[in-house]
């Protein structure tokens, strides 16, 4: 059991723990939700969790490269969200539903 001081003295570990929890939520959404758009939200959650750990590391090491990474990750996340949503639109046009099972044609 961690000491009271460890609990009260908020540092890198706390941020990383929070980041890991949010990441796992995002991962569970990607793995288990049926709605493609909610799966995309899960991806966003995972990316944000990683961003949080980047910023925490940057703060602790005093190196601003972490901020730059976050900046790039955000850009790519936006692009990815755009593509994912476009695909969702394409599926919706066809089936009027955005269930992941419409992507289940990967079996040979």
């Amino acid at each position, binding site marked *: 059991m961690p000491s009271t001081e460890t609990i*009260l003295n*908020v540092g*890198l*570990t706390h*941020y*990383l*723990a929070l*980041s*890991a*929890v*949010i990441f*796992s*939520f*995002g*991962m*569970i*959404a990607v*793995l*288990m*939700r*049926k*709605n493609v*758009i*909610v799966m995309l*939200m899960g991806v*966003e*959650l995972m990316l*944000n969790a990683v*961003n*949080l750990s980047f*910023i925490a590391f*940057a*703060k*602790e*090491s*005093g190196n*601003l*490269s972490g*901020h*730059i990474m976050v*900046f*790039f990750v*955000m*850009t790519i996340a*936006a*692009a990815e*969200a*755009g*593509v994912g*949503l*476009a695909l*969702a*639109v*394409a*599926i*919706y046009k*066809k089936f009027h539903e*955005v269930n*992941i099972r*419409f992507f289940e044609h990967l079996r040979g």
Partner: protein
Amino acid sequence: MLWDAIGFYGMALFLIFFALKTITVPNPIHAALYLVLTMIGLAGMFFNLGAHFIAGVQMIVYAGAVMVLFVMVLMLFDLKAEIRSFSRGLLSGALKIMSSALLVGFALGSAGSSVAILDSSDTAPTQIDVTRQLGVLLYTKYLFAFEVLGILLLVVAVGVVAVSRMKGGTHAQH
């Protein structure tokens, strides 16, 4: 220090609650709204960590632009709350939760064991400096990556239009 801790824990609890709600509510619109709250919470975290500029960008790009896009698409589809919002399969569901938990456990474990090495400095520059240095870094050391990202965004913009305009694609029925 106590107030710091109270602030962090309060914010963290909210974040975890919103994130959990995001992935569990059956209605996608509600999920999106909870996600917006999560994003805002994260922006607060960034602010707390001294990354003011990033926090602003988080608010504008994520909580603003990206989430508006999500909500717009959801509105467009006119989706109702789903009766079965999770994938089927008890075994695979258990496996999924297990592997996620395993990963979180490892992440927590490794973070805990590395605190001693990293949890030291408090030499962060003042906030104006951070943003200025960020700008300098972006346009000097990371200039190439920055430009490439610009091109990527252009390609993605064109691709998104193409994908959403196509009729059926590989699922074409006629």
